């Protein structure tokens, strides 16, 4: 139907020119002020050196980037982010997969289970963080007390490992429901003729899951892994701020938290902008990966 430039246009359409331009003004205006200009500013600032009061500005080339990559704290932050997102991804996907498999099998009580498991989606990350900070608070937290009684010297204020475990738990608790709902939708979309054929051939439920369900869920799992990385990189700011503030000794100082502290607390704008640009590059990569999911998902859409 027509040339490539007509992509996404209805065959039956209106010919006016002024009206659609007016209709686009609010959207494009907001995007210009709060998306395009700030993004460009981050790009230019990353190549400038300025003092905290903005009095002197000079072109610095790649200096912000080279200093950043040479700094011990930034490399620590990269490492912490990678450990955090990988652990969070593994825990979230594995739990969600088991829950989705179980939900798909049973008949009675399905709606109620689903309704309860979905609840954490409605809870703000910072509240999830506060909740878990209390549960595992070494002085008063009931779960910390269980650990202490089991002889484990749990203290996320002192031990970096404990702090990391705590933020991974809080972040996963909040995000399992998101993975769960997509995996459940994926399982429901598997054509029943495939499963019935396998059942007639004598394949038991678990075997059917591993030989039919799991491979067909491939694109969904890929999409969720990408989304979990995005979540782990960008949306955990609130959890970190409420639970550990990046500590102890930088053990949970993930990249997005460091951008914030360097820019707004230490007022090192050039470095903060350079960090923003690196995060932008990562976000772009993740978005491109997401589009691959959309492409592949179409093929499985039966």
């Amino acid at each position: 139907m027509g040339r490539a430039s007509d992509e996404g246009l209805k065959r039956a359409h209106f010919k006016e020119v002024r009206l659609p331009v007016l209709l686009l003004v609010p959207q494009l205006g907001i995007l210009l002020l709060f998306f395009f200009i700030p993004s460009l500013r981050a790009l230019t600032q990353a190549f400038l050196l300025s003092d905290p009061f903005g009095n002197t500005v000079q072109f610095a080339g790649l200096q912000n980037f080279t200093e950043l990559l040479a700094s011990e704290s930034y490399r620590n932050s990269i490492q912490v982010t990678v450990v955090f997102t990988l652990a969070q991804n593994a825990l979230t996907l594995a739990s969600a997969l088991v829950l989705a498999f179980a939900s798909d099998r049973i008949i009675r009580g399905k709606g109620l289970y689903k309704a309860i498991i979905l609840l954490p989606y409605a809870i703000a990350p910072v509240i999830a963080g506060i909740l878990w900070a209390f549960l595992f608070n070494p002085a008063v937290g009931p779960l910390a007390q269980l650990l202490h009684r089991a002889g484990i010297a749990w203290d996320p204020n002192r031990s970096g490992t404990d702090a990391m475990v705590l933020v991974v738990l809080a972040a996963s608790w909040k995000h399992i429901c998101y993975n769960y709902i997509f995996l459940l939708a994926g399982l429901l979309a598997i054509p029943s003729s495939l499963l019935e054929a396998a059942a007639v051939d004598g394949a038991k439920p678990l075997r059917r899951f591993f030989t039919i369900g799991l491979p067909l869920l491939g694109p969904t799992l890929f999409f969720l892994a990408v989304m979990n990385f995005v979540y782990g990189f960008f949306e955990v700011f609130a959890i970190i701020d409420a639970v550990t503030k990046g500590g102890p000794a930088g053990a949970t100082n993930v990249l997005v938290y460091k951008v914030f502290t360097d820019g707004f607390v230490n007022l090192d704008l050039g470095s903060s902008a350079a960090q923003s640009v690196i995060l932008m590059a990562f976000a772009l990569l993740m978005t491109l990966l997401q589009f691959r999911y959309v492409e592949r998902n179409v093929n499985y859409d039966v």
Partner: protein
Amino acid sequence: MVERTPILDGICHAILLAGVAMVCVPLYLAFVAGSLTIEQVQQVPLPWTPGGEFLANLDTAWTKGHFRQLFVNSFVVSCGITAGKIAVSLLSAFAITYFRFPFRMTAFWLIFVSLMLPIEVRISPTYEAVANAALPLQWLADALHLAGAWQWLTGHEVEIQLEWNMVNTYQGLILPLMASASATFLFRQFFLTVPEELCEAARLDGASPMHFFWTVLLPLSRSNMVALAIILFLYGWNQYLWPLLFTTDKDMATAVVGLKQLIPRADSQPAWNVAMAAALLTMLPPVVVVAVLQRSFVKGLVDSSK
């Protein structure tokens, strides 16, 4: 499926019960802590049954945290984001699917690109934009030497200083969070599935584009709008970083941000009972929305991520 598998079914129920416990136990413990006195909450071990102080703690939190004002702010901000984003997105999706005009694809790609960068990666420049939204106009004026031109024309010396500070205002909280185009794409996808005949019939009847939009397209989009509204309301209510940055005035903060002041610090009295009561209160509106509108919520979640 066809066969009976009582053992596997039992295991599945056990797994799901574990999932339910995983969600409910933390919430229950928070409730228990929120219903104790400050002496009781510091006991080791913590009691496993609730005490009778829940309402008293709620009351303390409500006054200590200025929550009356903060809840109003949260409602204004989340409803503003929801209504604003849906309105703006409906209009632009209508424009790019139902009209042929020059630079249509340019507009499409400009909106498309904005899907790629989450707002968290442009923290400081976006702050700058909110602190003075007129800054781009100022650059334009500077670049064109408007002041110089004015002086040359009239002989008066002027200095052009444009300022529009949105810190501590509702629009400063709402507008930056509206700057993402995901909703536009949801509506675009939906419009593309609307039968062509509807538009043809409307045109044959001589209906104007806006008439078609109001009487045909909008009613058809209602279920998508509801689904999206739920997701956007949660998004707005649960925002943390932006309200934290943009509100220096305590009375302009949102409920989720205000909660932070109630978390016990190392050197203060550990009033976890008040903090937990306040946390439960603040999570209540979005939890109720999801619990009541379960079906639309799932639809919105799955649709808006495509």
